[in-house]
């Protein structure tokens, strides 16, 4: 019983992490058909933001304030990744819309540059980030079953981000413009929408969410120049499986992969588990090539 509970929670936790790292990509890839191979590096930017804020708090502020660094780090992670995403979109990505192969190559190069930049600024070795003390420990459900607070926090964070995204996309003027552009770019332009601005902001938001993911991941994983490469493949798998164009698809994809991964990993080994999940995804895509939840729209097919 304890085992079932633990593994169920683990599956949910893995799913939430997958969703967080894939959400930004779902927006840039799903809405704009841009293959952003530098997405992992935006996660890295978010992680280093946490490191930076922590360092500032450690060196300039009294000890008692330290635990407050984390919410600030989340905000900075979003802002920094948003800004760099905006820069990238206006300088490079905007010229590559509708050209998946070109955007793949160019963003791959950008990813390498960002990694090397991180190496130059912060050094090649991983850096340590101390998590705030209010996240230490866990919820004891019963003997042998502990739900770590950090993982619970990430679950809550993901839910919050999803809610924010939903409100933005479906309840705000900017979100309505984004949906219009996504469904029919030419017509949206003819109605007075600045597609350039919508594209830039959309890409920047996707990047910003990746930054938040990176900051969240400092709680449980490494922080170094190459952490982006650990997550990029998973992110793409979630988006492709979930179906391009709908956030609910991304959530479903993340849940599916996370649960399956945990199940297979328990039954066999971590490596084999990943392979089996991959095979399942490939098999599923044979049956439903557009993914779990697909949106048929001219801008995506064209």
């Amino acid at each position: 019983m304890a085992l079932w509970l633990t593994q169920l929670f683990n599956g949910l936790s893995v799913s939430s992490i997958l969703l967080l790292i894939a959400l930004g990509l779902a927006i840039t890839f799903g809405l704009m058909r841009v293959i952003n191979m530098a997405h992992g590096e935006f996660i890295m930017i978010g992680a280093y933001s946490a490191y930076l804020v922590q360092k500032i708090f450690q060196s300039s502020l009294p000890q008692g304030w330290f635990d407050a660094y984390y919410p600030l780090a989340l905000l900075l992670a979003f802002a920094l990744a948003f800004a760099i995403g905006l820069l990238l979109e206006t300088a490079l990505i905007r010229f590559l819309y509708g050209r998946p192969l070109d955007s793949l190559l160019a963003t791959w190069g950008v990813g390498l540059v960002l990694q090397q930049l991180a190496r130059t600024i912060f050094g090649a070795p991983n850096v340590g980030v101390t998590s705030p003390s209010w996240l230490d420990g866990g919820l004891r459900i019963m003997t042998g079953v502990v739900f770590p607070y950090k993982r619970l926090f990430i679950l809550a964070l993901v839910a919050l981000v999803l809610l924010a995204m939903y409100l933005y996309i479906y309840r705000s003027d900017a979100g309505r413009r984004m949906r219009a552009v996504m469904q029919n770019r030419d017509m949206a332009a003819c109605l007075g929408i600045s597609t350039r601005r919508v594209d830039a902001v959309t890409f920047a938001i996707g990047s910003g969410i990746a930054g938040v993911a990176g900051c969240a991941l400092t709680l449980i994983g490494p922080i170094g120049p190459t952490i982006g490469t650990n997550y990029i493949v998973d992110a793409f798998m979630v988006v492709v499986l979930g179906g391009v164009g709908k956030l609910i698809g991304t959530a479903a994809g993340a849940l599916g992969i996370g649960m399956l991964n945990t199940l297979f990993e328990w039954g066999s080994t971590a490596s084999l588990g990943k392979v089996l999940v991959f095979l399942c995804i490939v098999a599923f895509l044979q049956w439903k090539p557009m993914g779990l939840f697909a949106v048929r729209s001219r801008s995506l097919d064209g």
Partner: protein
Amino acid sequence: MLSVRRLDAGYGESVVLRGVSLDVEPGQVVCLMGRNGVGKTTLIRAVMGLLRPKGGSVAFKGEDVTRRSPGQRARRGIGYVPQGREIFPQLTVRENLRIGLEACADRKSRAAKDVPAAAVEKFPALQAMYGRRGGDLSGGQQQQLAFARALAAGPELLLLDEPTEGIQPSIVEDIRDVIRSIRAEGKTAILLVEQSLEFVRSVGDRFYIMEKGAVVWTGGKEELDDPAVTRYLTV
């Protein structure tokens, strides 16, 4: 209002429009006719800015807009109802209409929370459908929605590309009435692409006929009985 001069345009290497010139005066309803494939839709798209011309110019309200993007032209007061309606299928009727506001020149109007009155007063049937998704509407309802959406920002020039094509007769009548009422108000000029001679006779002030990418006949209502007209229009 609208001044097209010696426009050459096409897709890729092919040339569709050859030296087309056309004028629309304020408040006027100008009808563009011709057989299938002569370039009527291409001309409309070039006027809207969806197509970059290879030569010639487009001027709107005295300003040369040949280099301007469709969004910029919409903001300057051109409304567009394309062939095929092109409503946003996943957005509700209300949301479609509010997108129409994006062409408003000032921010306050753009951010208005209510469904634009200018749009709906001509199409009261839409009021019952605000919550329905655009993709769920019938062809005729979508046409009304597309029309209303284009009116939302109060354009000074409306481009209508075959608004009655494939629509049931009762809605065709509605559209005829709407065009007439817009003409009566005199605030909005219309460039209308239409195949039906009978329809254009009932709403138009000035008429152009195109063949093989060029304007071959132009005249007022009185000249419509010219036998050349029928010759150009029959297949």
